[in-house]
């Protein structure tokens, strides 16, 4: 593994049954890099980032995260998931637990943190995403934007080096998108490694170090945001950008 790479994906292939969903993916991510992944629906973006924290298994190739080889070894998976956090499109907060309990669950049970410390950490991150006053409520009592910010705070509680976002704003009402993006922009400035699947091109232009375009299970183009948007090389990317930027 090269010195400052935190993620190295080599010749990754994955099939769902007969369907070749990821085709020979190669990707290196440096420490602190912000990567935005975009591409048409069904191109395999979610599948790719879900392989990184082993929510999906893969058949060929290798992924190494922070020196941890991604395999089905339980110990390695545990170490991997302490290091990599994920934010989902549909938040996936635990509806039976209060906001505070959602945040302290992992620190208390996975990191064996004393309850007091876990609560202090949780409150710190809730404050960071601007909803400390909602700590005792339940997820269903919050708006979508607030829930997604709680989900981000929850994933921060275990102090991960790497954060994965899978379309964190696409289930939100338009007026709530920016409150979540603001939080993500703040995070991007902190030097955490981030991989975001998103079609928020404003966000990509503002913070991304690299933008990746996927189509039909392949990485088709990979570039700095400026070149990516101003001088797209492949026809498929040109067509895609036309479609999402045309209105």
């Amino acid at each position, binding site marked *: 593994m090269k010195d400052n790479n935190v993620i190295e994906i080599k010749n990754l292939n994955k099939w769902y049954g007969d369907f070749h969903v990821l085709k020979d993916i190669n990707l290196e991510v440096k420490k602190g890099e912000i990567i935005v992944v975009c591409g048409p629906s069904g191109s395999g973006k979610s599948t790719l980032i879900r392989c990184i*924290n082993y*929510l999906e298994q893969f058949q060929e190739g290798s992924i190494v995260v922070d020196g941890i080889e991604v395999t089905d070894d339980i110990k390695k998976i*545990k170490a991997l*998931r*302490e290091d990599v*956090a*994920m934010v*989902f499109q*549909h938040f*996936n*907060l*635990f*509806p*039976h*637990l209060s906001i505070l309990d959602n945040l302290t*669950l*992992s620190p208390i*049970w*996975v990191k064996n943190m004393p309850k007091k410390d876990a609560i202090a950490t949780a409150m710190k991150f809730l404050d960071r995403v601007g909803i400390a006053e909602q700590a005792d409520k*339940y*997820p*269903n*009592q919050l708006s979508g934007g607030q829930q997604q910010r709680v989900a981000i705070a*929850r*994933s921060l509680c*275990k102090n991960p080096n790497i954060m994965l976002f899978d379309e964190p704003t696409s289930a939100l009402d338009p007026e709530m998108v920016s409150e979540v993006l603001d939080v993500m922009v703040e995070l991007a400035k902190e030097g955490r490694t981030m991989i975001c699947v998103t079609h928020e091109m404003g966000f990509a232009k503002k913070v991304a170090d690299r933008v990746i375009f996927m189509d039909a299970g392949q990485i088709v183009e990979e570039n700095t945001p400026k070149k990516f948007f101003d001088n797209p090389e492949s026809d498929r990317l040109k067509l895609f950008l036309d479609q999402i930027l045309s209105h």
Partner: protein
Amino acid sequence: MAVYEQKQALEAPSSTKGAIHWIKENLFSSPLNTIMTLMGFGFLYIIIPPLLQWAYFDANFVGTTREQCTGDGACWVFIKMKMDMFLYGFYPETELWRLKAIVIMFVALVIGLRFIKSGKVKFGIVFSYFIISLILTAGGIFGLESVPTDKWGGLMLTIVVASVGIVFSFPIGIIVAFGRQSNLPIIRSVCVTYVEMIRGVPLITILFMSSVILPLFFPEGISFDKLLRALIGITLFQAAYVAENIRGGLQAIPKGQYEAADAIGLSYWQKMLLVILPQALKVAIPNLAGAFISLFQDTTLVLIIGLFDLLAMVRITAADSHWLGMETEGYVFVTVIFWAFCYGMSRYSNKLEKQFDTNLK
């Protein structure tokens, strides 16, 4: 373009509120509804007055013998005189204080638990209560006289069978329900086979099997307790139904919950017990309560393998030569007790459902 002024909210018209409105809406909204309402009232009119006459106005409450029951109505003296039999079966009179202590401790427990916050402490207290109750009921240690299980009977036996059945079938059912979702085909098929086999057989058969066939698997001379055999049978029976109800709850949990639990690093058991099970239970509460209420009623079947529960006590007490023909009073009394318990369980399940409800708006 136009701008409109904001309108004030007005009070709803009075014809849509109040008791008269409710009666109109619910009892006489259509001709069919009106006929049903009248028939319902007519039925109550035929049933209620004679019942009250028999059970209360003409009934006999005072006295100690049958001869003192001179009125036309029920002879509740019978129930009064046989109360210990109904409640405790043939449990020795000198040892009855032990059972009474358990009841008193139960009341203290119910009140006391309200003041305890920590779930672990609560669990510890309830667990100790069960152990202490078991020791008190069975005896044989700490200088307590041993009371063999063939002396157990009446309501006490009903409660023992039902509560042991509920308490033990619950964790087994949970594990079987998890097993049915397992990725390992062997575990999955064992669990499916177990559930499908049990559900294809009536409880009565399982009771017969556990009392007749189970002993065949043990070496000659080792006879283990009849009640214990029934308890094992009932627990295994109930566990299959608990498993099915919980499986129903598990199916209602979206995949995202499993993924989020995985993603924050919880282990399999942490994920299942902290995230998935509480949500599945919430969904399953009404069905589980139904299953436990039927179990409580099904405990009456233990009669067929020679155990005398509350219902069986009616026949035994009414066979007493001083009290021949008192079955009616006995059955009415037992019915009321069964109803009270089942109603209580149903109310409790409603309360739990509300407690678990975090979809508050």
